[in-house]
């Protein structure tokens, strides 16, 4: 009796094992996106409407995305990532052209963002903007001296020792130090990088932790006084805790734009384009905006928001702030390696 049961279970297991790797279901769509960067319901709705099965995978930093893609072990159909990383992949010939005839709803997007995208996609052939924003300081007004948050310098103020959250992402953390020193955030000059590194090492004893997506919740829970976060993260945090506020320091910051593209590995390009069109649809984009809460380039959605939200400068950065911001450019391999090594040295410093 026991033996029969065992035999049955074995057959079942072996059977399902081979079924798992045997055939390939053609009607799928494999997506790679940042964490917390889509309303899960959007995926459910897409599956329900089109019958396409979505295989959804997340990553934390753009570098993490690059590795996952380059490993080549998974054939992604559609990836969303940031400007400089897309530039790098376009340079490596890893991106497919989009067929915009299949994505008619792209007309819902404000064309000025396509202008902006030209910095990494010069002919607007490859990408569709998803969300954009800046990087700034999310802080707790009860604890932090508000007259000082207009400068990155406050992140080195030892009155907030153990209450500062830095970005756990190479380029974002270096950006802060570089801007404070008055450099470009795309600098590759070694002495400037070293100076920025030195500053970040000095800061380390004051840092509560290096985080990306968790920073928001730590701030809401008031486990820290201030955090370097993306503007959208701040926008959402402000909704949960009235003590919080957001500032983009006067030294300038990074303006980023996250866009969708089809990588060379795409095997379901039609499904990918269907999905992009779906994302541009007003009701879907609105649903998604409510969840992600970053500045959306979808003008239909923006127009439908109430005035107060449209004028929320945390979510929609005003022009004068954007003018003071720089866009990240992709680094060559040698510079990228130095950034990585210097970052590791910061992380292992005492």
């Amino acid at each position, binding site marked *: 009796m026991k033996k029969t049961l065992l035999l049955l279970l074995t057959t079942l*297991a072996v059977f399902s094992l081979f079924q798992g*790797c045997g055939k390939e279901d053609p009607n799928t769509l494999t997506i790679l996106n940042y964490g917390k960067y889509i309303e*899960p319901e959007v995926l459910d709705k897409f599956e329900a409407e089109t019958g396409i099965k979505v*295989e*959804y995978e997340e990553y934390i930093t753009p570098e993490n995305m690059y590795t996952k893609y380059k*490993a080549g072990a998974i054939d992604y159909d559609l990836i969303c990532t940031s400007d400089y990383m897309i530039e790098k992949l376009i340079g490596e010939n890893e991106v497919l052209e989009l067929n915009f005839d299949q994505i008619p709803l792209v007309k819902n997007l404000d064309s000025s963002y396509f202008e902006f995208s030209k910095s990494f996609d010069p002919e607007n052939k490859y990408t569709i903007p998803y969300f954009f924003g800046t990087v700034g300081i999310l802080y707790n007004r009860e604890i932090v001296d508000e007259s000082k948050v207009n400068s990155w310098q406050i992140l080195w103020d030892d009155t907030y020792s153990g209450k500062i959250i830095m970005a756990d992402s190479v380029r974002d953390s270096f950006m802060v130090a570089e801007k404070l020193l008055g450099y470009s955030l795309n600098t590759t000059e070694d002495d400037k990088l070293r100076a920025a590194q030195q500053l970040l090492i000095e800061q380390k004893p004051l840092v509560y932790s290096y985080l990306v*997506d968790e*920073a928001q919740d730590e701030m809401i829970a008031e486990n820290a006084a201030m955090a370097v976060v993306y503007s959208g993260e701040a926008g959402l945090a402000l909704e*949960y805790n009235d003590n919080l506020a957001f500032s983009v320091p006067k030294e300038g910051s990074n303006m980023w734009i996250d866009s969708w593209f089809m990588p060379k590995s795409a095997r379901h390009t039609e499904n990918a384009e269907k999905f992009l069109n779906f994302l541009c649809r007003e009701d879907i984009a609105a649903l998604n905006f409510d969840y992600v809460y970053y500045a959306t380039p979808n003008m239909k959605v923006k127009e439908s928001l109430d005035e107060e939200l449209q004028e929320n400068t945390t979510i929609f950065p005003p022009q004068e702030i954007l003018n003071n911001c720089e866009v990240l450019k992709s680094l060559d391999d040698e510079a990228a390696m130095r950034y990585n090594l210097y970052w590791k040295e910061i992380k292992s410093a005492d």
Partner: protein
Amino acid sequence: MIKKSAERIYLFLIFLFLYLPILVLIVLSFNDSKAKVVWGGFTVRWYKELFSNTAIMEAFSTTIFVSLASALLATILGTLAALGIDAMKKRGRTIMLGATNIPLLNADIVTGISMMLLFVRFTRLGLSTVLIAHITFNIPYVILNVLPKLKQSSRTTYEAALDLGATPLYAFYKITWPQILPGVLSGFLMAMTMSLDDFSVTYFTKGAGINTLSTIIYTEMRKGIRPEMYALSTILFLIALILLLFINFRPAVRRERQD
């Protein structure tokens, strides 16, 4: 007397250490306040959110499938291997045991990465790669559980059965099998425990959209506070409790322990 109470206190402290974190998770799973660790009223909201979270539910079933299937296949391969190794001469046995120890001693991260390198080169990552990886690190646990029982099992009875005309298979089924069964079962159980608890190997060998509980909790945790996770902990704890109670206190086991 003092010694006795010191012992009691020590035991109590260790159990507190082991179970306090779990208790905290359970209490917080009913807490109606997301942001802070402050009691905000009783709620079952997180349970509702958990059950409507398809990603977690899928990861749950994947975990069950992977741990059962991998433990089962590892038990079969491992038991056969143990029978084979037991029949080997000393040198062959030493080599085999040494090789068996490799995945056991190797760092999870190295096991996971080396398999990833292999899979990336020859195939795509998917559910089957996770399963293969789990079977691989499970087999040694089975072998190491079955071998001692085989050594204890009485060789002479088996050979006597053969001399009396039993086929090897029949003799094995009638004589050896009942003697090694406890080892096979505990090997299976250990393999399942390891598979359930694994994070590193799965992390490196999983394909897109495939998650076990470990990997999905890891990604969820990197996103910030998720009270659904507390609810999940409570449910997993209850399942583990019931299952282990069932396994440990079955009458069959009790009978076996009496001999």
